[in-house]
Structure formats: C-alpha cells, structure tokens
C-alpha cells in the first residue's frame, strides 16, 4: 500500500511539474530553440524575405570570412570596444562600490546618483551624449578646455569615436556597481577586524581580503558585461550610424544593416551565428580560466 501511494504522489508531482512549467517550455521552444535552429539554417541560405530561401551551403561564410573586409572591420571594432569598455567599466564600478561600502552619511543619495544613469532610457542617454561629445559646444570638450586641453573630435573622429561611446558606457555602470556592493557586504567583518589587529593597512586589506573574497562577484560581472558589450546596438544606431568611416560599426549594427536594410536575411543570419559563437567562446574561456582566479568559500 505505501509503495503505490508513494508512486501515485510521484506521478502527481511529475504531471504538476510539467504542467506548471508548461508556459516556459512552450516559450523556450517557440522563442528560443526554434529561432536558434532557424538562424543556423538560414545562415546556409540566401533569403530576401520575399522569395523562398535558397540553400547555398557555405557561401555566406565564405563571403563573410574571405570576401568581406567590412566584416573583419566590425569584428575588430567589437573586440576593441569590449576589450576596453568591460575592464574599464568594472574598475570604475568597483571603485564606486568600495567608496559606498563605508558606513557614512548620505550613502543612499550617492548610491542613487551613481545608479541613475543605468536606468535612464538608452535612446535618451545616447542623444544626450551626442550633445555632450559635440566637439565645439559639448560639455566634455568645454571642461577639457578649462584645464587647458584641446578636446578631440569624438564622434566625428575615426580614432576617438570608440572611446567616446566607451566613456558613455562607463557612465552607465550603476547596475554592476550595485552587484559589487552586494558582494562587498557579503564579506564577513571579522576578517577585517583580524587583519587590523595584525596591523594590515587599508591597501593590504583590499589586496588580501577584499579582492580574493570578491572574485565570484567579479567573475559574474565580467561574464554579464562581456555578453552585453557584444550586443551593443542602440548607442551606435543613434550616435554614429556606424561611422565615421565604419569606425563604430560593431557586429550587431552590421547584422541589422544586412538583415533589415538590404534584406539579406541569410547573410545576416551567418553574422548572428558568428556573434553567438563569439559570445559562447568568450564565456567558455572566462569560465575555464575562472578556476585559477575565482575563490569560492567552502560552505
């Protein structure tokens, strides 16, 4: 008797489990698995939306890798942007979080100020920064002029366009900062008390306690920010349109151009596949190397 009762409850659990998860199972199949499969299939096709897709096997990839210099340009731009904006953003976010981690007056106010840029609509932010980065009348170059520096042309210059967008990105690190702050508050206070008794100064405490204890948080932020940097689109679409001279044409804006300007859905799909692979490889590399630098407390 107890045996069958147990089985009955097990079957009941299974049915309910699947039933409750059904919305997401359907959503996953329809809006995730199916599009991912399709994007791979379309990447082997020539497809202009109007006429049915034609199987051309590797031609898109051949064009992408061997005949399309713009593609390599966008790959370089994307890697440059990610490679600079992610570490710089992490450092600024960590610095702000460290400052906010002390019990001082006015902390909520400071936290709000640093976090606000992260929640403002990106379209609004991008337009504002076009104005801030205006070479002649913009805020930034005027401030630079005050300290005797002639500011560059920013979005009008092929050299300074990427740093311009990166500066804006760094201004938007509030979310990362809050996650760092949560990580900092998780570090047991006793560790610092013991270190203080041993005579360790603030810098040593940071180096030997804060940093190692924070590595899981750094790891999490690194992955999240890398993925999000690879997706950059809106900033470019609004601020530069990929210019000047394609210096800010990243992978996703190029994908959009091919897909929704020229209606080369097959070609755009091959770019999307490359984007996915780049994100995948980066995540795997970070994950793989993490065992060497991420310290997990044994619980």
């Amino acid at each position, binding site marked *: 008797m107890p045996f069958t009762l147990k089985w009955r409850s*097990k079957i*009941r*659990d299974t049915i309910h*489990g699947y039933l*409750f*998860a059904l*919305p*997401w*199972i*359907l*959503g996953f199949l*329809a*809006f*995730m698995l199916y*599009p*991912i499969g*399709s*994007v791979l299939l*379309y990447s082997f096709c020539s497809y202009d*939306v109007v006429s049915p897709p034609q199987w051309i096997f590797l031609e898109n990839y051949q064009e992408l890798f061997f005949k399309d210099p713009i593609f390599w340009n966008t790959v370089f731009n994307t890697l440059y942007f990610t490679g600079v904006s992610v570490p710089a953003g992490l450092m600024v976010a960590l610095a*702000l979080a460290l*400052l906010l981690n002390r019990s*001082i007056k006015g902390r909520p106010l400071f936290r709000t*100020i640093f*976090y*606000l*840029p992260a*929640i*403002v*609509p*990106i*379209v*609004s932010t991008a*337009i*504002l920064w*076009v*104005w*801030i980065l205006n070479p002649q009348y913009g*805020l930034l170059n*005027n401030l630079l002029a*005050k300290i005797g520096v002639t500011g560059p042309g920013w979005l009008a210059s092929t050299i300074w366009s990427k740093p311009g967008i990166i500066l804006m990105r760094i201004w938007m690190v509030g*979310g990362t900062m*809050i*996650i760092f702050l949560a*990580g900092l508050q998780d570090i047991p206070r006793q560790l610092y008390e013991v270190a203080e008794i041993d005579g360790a100064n603030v810098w040593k405490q940071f180096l030997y306690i804060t940093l190692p204890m924070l590595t*899981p*948080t750094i790891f*999490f932020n690194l992955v999240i920010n890398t993925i999000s940097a690879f*997706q950059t*689109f*809106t900033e470019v*679409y609004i601020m530069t349109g990929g210019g000047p001279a394609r210096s800010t044409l990243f992978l*996703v804006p190029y*994908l*959009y151009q091919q*897909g*929704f300007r020229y209606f080369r859905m097959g070609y755009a*799909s091959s770019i999307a596949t490359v984007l*996915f692979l780049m*994100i995948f490889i980066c995540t795997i590399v970070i994950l793989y190397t993490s065992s060497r630098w991420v310290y997990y407390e044994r619980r």
Partner: protein
Amino acid sequence: MPAVYLSINARKRILDILVYLFLGLGSIIYILPFLWQVSTSLKIQSQLFVFPPKWIPQPVAWENYPRGLRMVPFARYFLNSSIVTTLSVIGRLVSCPIVAYSFARLKWPGRNFFFVVTLATLMIPFQVTMIPLFITFRKLGWIDTFKPLIIPCFFGSAFFIFLLRQFFLTIPEELSDAAKIDGCSHFGIFWRIMLPLTKPALAVVAIFEFLWTWNDFIGPLIFLNSEEKYTVAIGLQQFFGAHGADWGALMATSTIVTFPVILLFFFTQRYFIEGITLTGIKA
C-alpha cells in the same frame, strides 16, 4: 625617518574624509550630464552655441517643452508605450511565478537538466534570434502590431524565472509541508501560501520588466513600421533624426521620456537594490 603613529581613530577619520572627497567628486561627474541636459532643455537656440557655455539659461525657455511635444505626436507614443509596457508586465507576472515554483519545489524528471538549459539561454541575446523571429512574426502577420512585443511575455522569461526560483528557495519548506498534510494541492500551496509571500520579488519582476520594455529600442525598431504605432523610444529617435540640431526641444523631450522611469525609481528604490542583489550574489 621617524614614523608617524596615528591612533586607529585618527586614521579612520582621515580615510572617511578621503572617501567623502572622492564620493563628492564622483557624484559631480555623474550628475553633470543630467544638469547639462536640463540646462540645455531650457535654452533658446542662440544660447546653445556659445563659448564658453552658460549653465544658467537666460532667458529660461520653458516653451521648449510644449514645443518639443507638439513637433511629433508624443502623446500617441506615450499611449503606445504604456499599452505595450502594461501588457508585458502582466504577461511576465502571470507566467513566471508558476514556472519558478515548479523549478523550485516540484520534483519531476528532467527538471534539473531543463533548469540548466534555462540558465544557458541567458547567454543568448535577442540580437542572435531576432532574424528568425522577425521572419516568423511576418508570416503570422504580426509585424507592425504590438503582438511581437507582448505575446512572448506571456511565456515566461529565463531571467525572471531564475530570480523567482531563488526567492522561492528561501521560503522554509515546512510551510508547504504543513499545507500538504492538510490536503492542499500543489496549485493551492502555490496560490495560497507561496504567492502572498512572494510579493517583494513580484514587485522586482514588475519593475524590471517595466524598465526594460519602456526603454527597449531594438524590439520596436524591428517589429513596428508605421508612425502611429511607435513607442517613445522610437519616437524620440525619429525626432532626433528629423530635428538633430534643435537641442533645446530634444533635451526637453528626452527629459519627459525619462521622467516616468525616474519617478518609478524614486518610489521603488528598495526593490531595485533588492532585485539586483537577489540575482547577483546567488549566481
């Protein structure tokens, strides 16, 4: 060199002063762009292009606000954004908690595998899947309607399911065990015991979904064509494209578009911080 010995308290004091100094400097840098935006929004055209720029507009050009709103049908855009945002939030709130409950508390074969798959999808951005989605929605005749922006919201979201699952796991199991003994069904436990305890987490879901939908640009850009369907994000971008040098009116409308978000933030700050923390640390 004789070493200077300061008492621990004195050293703490000095450190605090340094922290304040940097916080002050940092917050000035962070707030300047906003001040610049508001200042620009109140300037007449001839005051924009002066060197060095003046922070206090003279005269104060309040008319930039009504003028900006009149130049493109912003009322329409606000209505559209409100419709899409409200329905998206409802969709997430209806679909995510029950899935999260299933992952957190029910045992079914394949659950752990499917949960890992769910987490893995967090790695896949919309930008990778948008082409097939566009093609599918086009075949369904959904392009230039709000359907592609709203209907997927009723089928869960990996991020919110993860967030709510983490929250359910913090609720003591004894609560549901007691209800089970009393003959409560799984749905009854979910509906009567778990859900009322989940209100803070549901608030987090609602707030983030509001924020992301209101601010979303690429989705409406791809799925909407006609002007009367535009959301505020697209409307603002169109305005910028058409009147790129009218910075007074542009900054005024930007400020208005930003306003609901800032308002939401000030009333729900606690949930923001909690939400980020909830997903951040447990990862």
